[in-house]
């Protein structure tokens, strides 16, 4: 839906001008029971229900109409559905009820502990499961960031490794788009080797080159265990202030990576608290 009907200009315009659009993951909490109430009403009125489904309810919360995912993925049917509801309700157009904004939003982070934005995509022309990249926001604590820094007194060309618990956190999402129905990661990290070499030192400022290898098993579909493996060779750098014991920026990107015999690319970019707050 995201890459098809929900990226169509006419649908975007109709949704913004005539509807109040909202998405809700099936695994999301429904403390008020409202999602359950809506689905129950649609079921009772035999208007169709489904896990991946479009439900339209009126301003009074009464069921108006629905669209199964098969029909919703047909752009023509989706547009006709939206237009039909607009005509039926004689809705007055207006500005979006909520201003459009990036849906993949960085989390709030503590001072000195940047978020890491991970982007991963297959590097093939095949559009299946590749209509848009996958993203994750990784969170390291201040103490975990500290473990990426060089040992005290490290000299130029010194080398060190990121300790396993932190390395695994960096590695576990390095695989391309697969079917995900839960927020929890089902990867099993077999290798998370991040080696740093101090390549520049200027007063308290330093830069380390990063050479990394990651290998993890990750089944394409949840609930269907397999030994599908994502293997990556990565390179990058970390800039830091050794006196303040703080990483200024971290970049890691695949040089060569493969999953299910297909190449993919993945990048990890630190985003500082200052940048995140400035964009809110």
């Amino acid at each position, binding site marked *: 839906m995201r890459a098809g009907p929900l990226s169509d200009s006419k649908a975007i315009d109709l949704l913004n001008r005539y509807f*109040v659009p909202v998405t809700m993951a099936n695994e999301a909490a429904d403390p008020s029971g409202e999602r359950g109430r809506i689905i129950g009403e649609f079921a009772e009125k035999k208007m169709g229900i489904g896990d991946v489904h479009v439900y339209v309810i009126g301003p009074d919360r009464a069921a108006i109409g629905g669209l199964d995912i098969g029909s919703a993925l047909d752009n023509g049917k989706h547009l006709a559905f939206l237009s039909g509801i607009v005509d039926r309700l004689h809705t007055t157009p207006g500005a979006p009820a909520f201003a459009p904004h990036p849906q993949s939003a960085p989390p709030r982070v503590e001072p000195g502990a940047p978020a890491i934005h991970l982007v991963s995509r297959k590097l093939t022309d095949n559009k299946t499961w590749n209509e848009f990249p996958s993203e994750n926001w990784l969170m390291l604590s201040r103490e975990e960031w500290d473990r990426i820094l060089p040992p005290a007194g490290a000299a130029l060309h010194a080398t060190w490794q990121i300790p396993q618990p932190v390395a695994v956190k960096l590695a576990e999402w390095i695989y391309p788009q697969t079917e995900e129905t839960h927020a929890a990661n089902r990867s099993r990290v077999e290798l998370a080797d991040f080696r740093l070499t101090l390549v520049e030192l200027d007063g308290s400022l330093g830069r380390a080159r990063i050479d990394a290898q990651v290998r993890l098993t990750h089944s394409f579909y949840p609930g269907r265990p397999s030994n599908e493996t994502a293997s990556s060779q990565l390179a990058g750098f970390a*800039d830091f202030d050794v006196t303040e014991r703080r990483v200024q920026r971290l970049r890691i990107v695949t040089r060569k990576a493969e999953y299910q015999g297909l190449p993919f690319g993945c990048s990890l970019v630190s985003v500082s608290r200052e*940048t995140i707050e400035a964009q809110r």
Partner: protein
Amino acid sequence: MRYLAAVAATGVLLTAAENWLKDDSLVSSVEREVRKLQPTRAERRFDEIGWAPDLASAEAAAAKSHRPVYLFTYDGKIDTGRC
């Protein structure tokens, strides 16, 4: 996203630090590869829709504006593409 545009444009993000090492060939080559992977504008058209933050907010806004609510239910995380 705007901050990613900033990454693409300058390769530098805001931090509290005032001092930076100058970019070198390592930085340039890594940043170049990072940029190639970032979501494109076309891949982010979904963000052009004014999504309500949650169902309760959507219903409140619908009642106020006399508009219907369009609720799309799904599995996973559609916002980040892990779905």
